[in-house]
C-alpha cells in the first residue's frame, strides 16, 4: 500500500531540461513543486570532473550516464507483423537518466525549426499539391506557429547562452549566418565558436559550390556568459569529451549550468531523486489527475497528490507513462484511430568520409559537441522538392565532435575488418579524415508508432514501451538526394578518397544514429489526431501537461532541443498567464 504524502500544487515527472525550467518558473510564481527524478542527483562538481570524466570506455562505450537497461528498456520491431524484442543494451539512441536528464550528455546543437515546419502539412500541400505526398505519410500541423514561439526560442537561447551568428534579424539577412532561417528578434547571446579545421575545409568547398555555410548554433559556449537567471557558464575549451559526457568545465548548457542553481535555492521546490514514477492517478471520472504513484530507491511506494501533473521525462518515457496511466486512447495503426503513441518519428542521418593525404592533420580530438560548419541549402522547405518526389531534407556539415579512438578510427572502403591491413589503415587515416554529416527530417507515417509491449516488463513489473518503426520510403528518397549532395561537397574538399552511403532500410536500432526520438504524445488542433493541445495540455485530462519532443507531430531537419526549449517556455507562459488563473481546458473541445 502506497504511503500517501502531503498534497502539493505541482509535480514534475523527471527533472531534466523541461522539468527544471518549468519547476523553476512555477516555484517562482509561488507554487509548491515537487520534482521526481528516477536517477541520481549529480552536479558539475564533483560528478563531472576530470580526470575521471575523460573516460571513453566508461561514458561513451559503457554509457554510464544513460538509462540503466538492467531495469528498463524498450522493445523494437519494424512492423506489426514482427515480434518486438527488447533492446538488451541501448546503443541506437541514448536516453539519459539522473538529474538534468539527457541535456547533461547532449552535444549542444541548438537549432530553431523552420517557419514551414510548424505548418508542415498545410505548407507541403500548398506548395506541391495534395497528391504529391506519399499516402502513408501522417504529417500534421503543430497547432502553434513559429511567430508565436519566437519569443520563447529567444528566451531559451538566452538562458543557455547559445553561440552563433544570426542569419535573419527581423527579416533582414545577415552576412555570415544562415540565410534560410526564420526571423530572429535579436542576435545570438554569444558569438560563434572557433572554427575547426574540418569546418574550414568544408566551408571552402561549400562556398565554391555556391552554398551558404555558417557556424552551427552551439550550447558549448564561445565565451564566458551570465544568463538572465544570474547563472554563469565558462568558455568551451574544445576537449573533445562532450556528447555522452557531462561537461567538467561549466561550458555546456545543461540544467545544472543554466537553471538548477536558482531552482534548488527556492524553498517552494523539493527535489526527490531515485524516484521511479509508476503511473499518474486519475479520479473516478478519468478526466482529472489526482497525482502520481512512485517508488523510491529503497522500493517504498508513495502516492504524491498534486493539483497539476507535468510529464517532463524523455520523449519515449512520456508516452509510456501516459499509456501506463490510461491517458488518451492508444493509437491503432490498423484503423488509424486513437492518439497515444501516434506519429513516432526519428531522424534520418547519413555520413560521408573524406580521406586526405597524410600531410593534412585534421586533429579530430580538438573538438566540441556542436563545433560545426553547416549548410542549410537542402533542409526542409529551403529548396524546390517538385522535381525530386519527396518532402523534407537535411542540413549538411562538418561537425566532428571528437577523436576518441574506440569509437573513431575510420578506414576507407575495401579495408579488411581486422588484421595487419586494418591496423595499417587506421594508422594511415586516423588523423587525416574528415567526416561529414547529413542530418535529416523524419516524416511521420501511419505505421510508425509506440504502444505497450504485451510480453516484456521492467524491474517494477510494468510493460515496456514497444517501438514499431521503419524508415518511410519518402525519407529513403530524401536521404539518397542529400547524401549525393554531400558526396559532391566531399569531392570538392580535396580528399583522396570520398565514401558514404544514404540511410537504408532496415532501420537498425543497434547502430547509433541520434537520440532524437519524437512523437507519440503529439500536439495539434484536433483531439482526434493529437494527445495534447497547442499548450501541451492533455485534451482528456486538463491538469496533465506533457512536455517533450513527444509533442512533435513529425521530426524536422534539426536537432530537437532548441524547439523543445521554446515549447517549454511557451507552456510556462500559458500556465502562468492562463491556466493558474482559471484551471481547465485552455482550448475548447
Amino acid at each position, binding site marked *: 500500500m502506497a504511503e500517501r504524502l502531503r498534497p502539493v500544487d505541482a509535480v514534475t515527472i523527471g527533472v531534466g531540461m523541461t522539468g527544471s525550467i518549468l519547476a523553476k518558473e512555477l516555484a517562482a510564481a509561488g507554487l509548491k513543486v515537487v520534482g521526481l527524478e528516477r536517477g541520481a*542527483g549529480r*552536479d*558539475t*562538481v564533483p560528478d563531472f*570532473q*576530470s*580526470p*575521471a570524466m*575523460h*573516460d*571513453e*570506455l566508461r561514458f561513451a*562505450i*559503457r554509457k554510464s550516464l544513460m538509462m*540503466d*537497461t*538492467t531495469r528498463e*528498456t524498450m522493445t*523494437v520491431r*519494424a512492423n506489426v507483423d*514482427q515480434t518486438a*524484442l527488447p*533492446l*538488451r*543494451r541501448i546503443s541506437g539512441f541514448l536516453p539519459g537518466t539522473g*538529474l538534468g536528464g539527457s541535456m547533461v550528455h547532449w552535444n549542444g546543437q541548438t537549432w530553431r525549426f523552420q517557419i514551414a515546419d510548424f505548418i508542415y502539412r498545410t505548407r507541403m500541400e500548398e506548395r506541391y499539391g495534395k497528391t504529391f505526398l506519399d499516402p502513408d505519410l501522417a504529417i500534421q500541423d503543430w497547432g502553434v506557429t513559429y511567430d508565436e514561439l519566437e519569443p520563447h526560442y529567444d528566451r531559451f537561447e538566452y538562458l543557455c547562452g547559445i553561440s552563433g551568428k544570426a542569419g535573419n534579424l527581423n527579416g533582414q539577412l545577415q552576412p555570415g549566418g544562415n540565410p534560410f532561417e526564420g526571423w530572429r528578434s535579436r542576435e545570438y547571446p554569444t558569438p560563434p565558436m*572557433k572554427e*575547426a*579545421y574540418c569546418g574550414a575545409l568544408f566551408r571552402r568547398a561549400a562556398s565554391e559550390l555556391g552554398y551558404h555555410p555558417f557556424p552551427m548554433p552551439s550550447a558549448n559556449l564561445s565565451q564566458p556568459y551570465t544568463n538572465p537567471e*544570474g*547563472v554563469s557558464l565558462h568558455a568551451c*575549451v*574544445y*576537449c573533445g569529451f562532450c556528447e555522452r559526457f557531462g561537461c*567538467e*568545465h*561549466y561550458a555546456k548548457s545543461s540544467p545544472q*549550468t543554466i537553471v538548477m542553481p536558482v531552482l*534548488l535555492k527556492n524553498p517552494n521546490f523539493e*527535489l526527490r531523486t531515485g524516484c521511479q514514477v509508476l503511473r499518474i492517478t486519475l479520479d473516478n471520472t478519468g478526466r482529472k489527475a489526482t497525482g502520481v504513484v512512485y517508488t523510491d530507491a529503497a522500493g517504498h511506494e508513495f502516492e504524491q497528490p498534486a493539483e497539476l501533473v507535468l510529464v517532463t521525462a524523455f520523449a519515449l518515457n512520456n508516452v509510456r507513462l501516459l499509456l501506463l496511466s490510461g491517458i488518451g486512447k492508444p493509437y491503432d495503426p490498423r484503423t488509424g484511430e486513437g492518439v497515444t503513441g501516434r506519429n513516432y518519428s526519428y531522424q534520418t542521418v547519413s555520413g560521408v568520409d573524406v580521406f586526405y593525404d597524410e600531410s*593534412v*592533420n585534421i*586533429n579530430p*580530438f580538438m*573538438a566540441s559537441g556542436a*563545433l560545426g560548419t553547416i549548410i542549410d541549402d537542402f533542409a526542409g522547405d529551403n529548396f524546390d522538392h517538385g522535381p525530386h518526389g519527396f518532402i523534407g531534407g537535411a542540413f549538411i556539415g562538418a561537425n566532428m565532435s571528437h577523436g*576518441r*579512438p574506440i569509437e573513431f*578510427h575510420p578506414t576507407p572502403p575495401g579495408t579488411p575488418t*581486422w*588484421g*595487419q591491413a586494418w591496423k595499417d589503415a587506421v*594508422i594511415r587515416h586516423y588523423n587525416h579524415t574528415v567526416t561529414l554529416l547529413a542530418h535529416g527530417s523524419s516524416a511521420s507515417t501511419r505505421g510508425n508508432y509506440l504502444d505497450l509491449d504485451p510480453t*516484456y*516488463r521492467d524491474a517494477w513489473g510494468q510493460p515496456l514501451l514497444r517501438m514499431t518503426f521503419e524508415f518511410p520510403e519518402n525519407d529513403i528518397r530524401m536521404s539518397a538526394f542529400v547524401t549525393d549532395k554531400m558526396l559532391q561537397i566531399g569531392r570538392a574538399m580535396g580528399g583522396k578518397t570520398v565514401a558514404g552511403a544514404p540511410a537504408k532500410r*532496415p*532501420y*537498425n*536500432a*543497434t547502430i547509433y544514429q541520434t537520440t532524437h526520438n519524437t512523437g507519440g504524445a503529439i500536439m495539434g488542433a484536433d483531439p482526434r489526431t493529437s494527445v495534447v493541445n497547442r499548450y501541451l495540455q492533455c485534451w482528456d485530462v486538463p491538469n496533465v501537461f506533457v512536455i517533450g519532443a513527444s509533442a512533435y507531430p513529425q521530426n524536422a531537419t534539426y536537432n530537437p532541443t532548441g524547439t523543445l526549449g521554446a515549447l517549454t517556455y511557451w507552456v510556462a507562459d500559458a500556465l502562468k498567464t492562463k491556466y493558474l488563473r482559471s484551471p481547465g481546458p485552455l482550448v475548447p473541445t
Partner: protein
Amino acid sequence: MTIAPSVLPETSDSAHSGDALAQAVTRPAAIHSQPITYIFFNLDEVEFIEAAVARLIPADDRWPGALEVGVTNYIDKQMGGAWGAGERLYRSGPWQAGTPSQGYQLPLTPAELFRTAIAAINKELAAKGTPFAAMTPANQDAYLKELETTDRDLGGVPAREFFAHLWEATVEGFFGDPVYGGNRDMIAWRMIGFPGAYASYYDVVDKHGIVIDRPPMSLAQDAMGHVHLDPNIPPKLP
C-alpha cells in the same frame, strides 16, 4: 610525434607449466616483461585468446599489436568484473532470436558467452589435432574469418556473435585508457596520434593542421588539475 616502441614481444610459452586447473594464471606479458595475472580466463582459454588477439591486431616492425599492449589483460578484467556479469544488460525472457536490427538476444552474459564459445572452439580444434595457438598464422586468420562470417554453432553461441564480442573487446582494450589494463604505455594512442585525456585545446583548435607532438595523457595522470569551483553553483546537491 614518433615514439616507436623499442621492446617487442617476448615469446610466452614457458610460464604456465604449473597447475593447469588454476584459475589465476600468471603469464609473462609481451613488453616490459610485465606479467598478466589472469583472474577470469583459465589456461586453455588464455591459450586461445592470446593467440586470437595477436592475429586480430598483429605486431609489426614498427608497432606492437593487441597482445603486446595487454588487450587480453583488459578482456580478462572485464570478464571477471561487472561487465562480464551482465552490467547494464536486460536479462528477462522470453528468449528468442530476432533480426540483426534488434540486437543481442542470447541469455548469456558476456563472461558466459566467452567461456562457452572458447570451450567449443578448443574442443573442436582438439578433436582435429591442432589447437588454435599452434596453427600457422595463415590458418589462424582463416579460422577467425570463418568465425566472423558464419553462424556456426559454438555451444549455442553463433560464431558471428562471439567474433563480434571478441573484436569489440579487442578494440576497447587496444584503444581504451591504460587504467583498464590494456593499451600499455598508451602505445595505441602514440601509434595513431591521439593525445588522450587532455583537458583543453582552446589555444590550438583554430591553428589548422598543426602537428601535436606532446606525449599522450592517461586518466592516471591528472589532466592539468582542471577543476573549476564556481561559488555560484552549490557543490553538493541537497
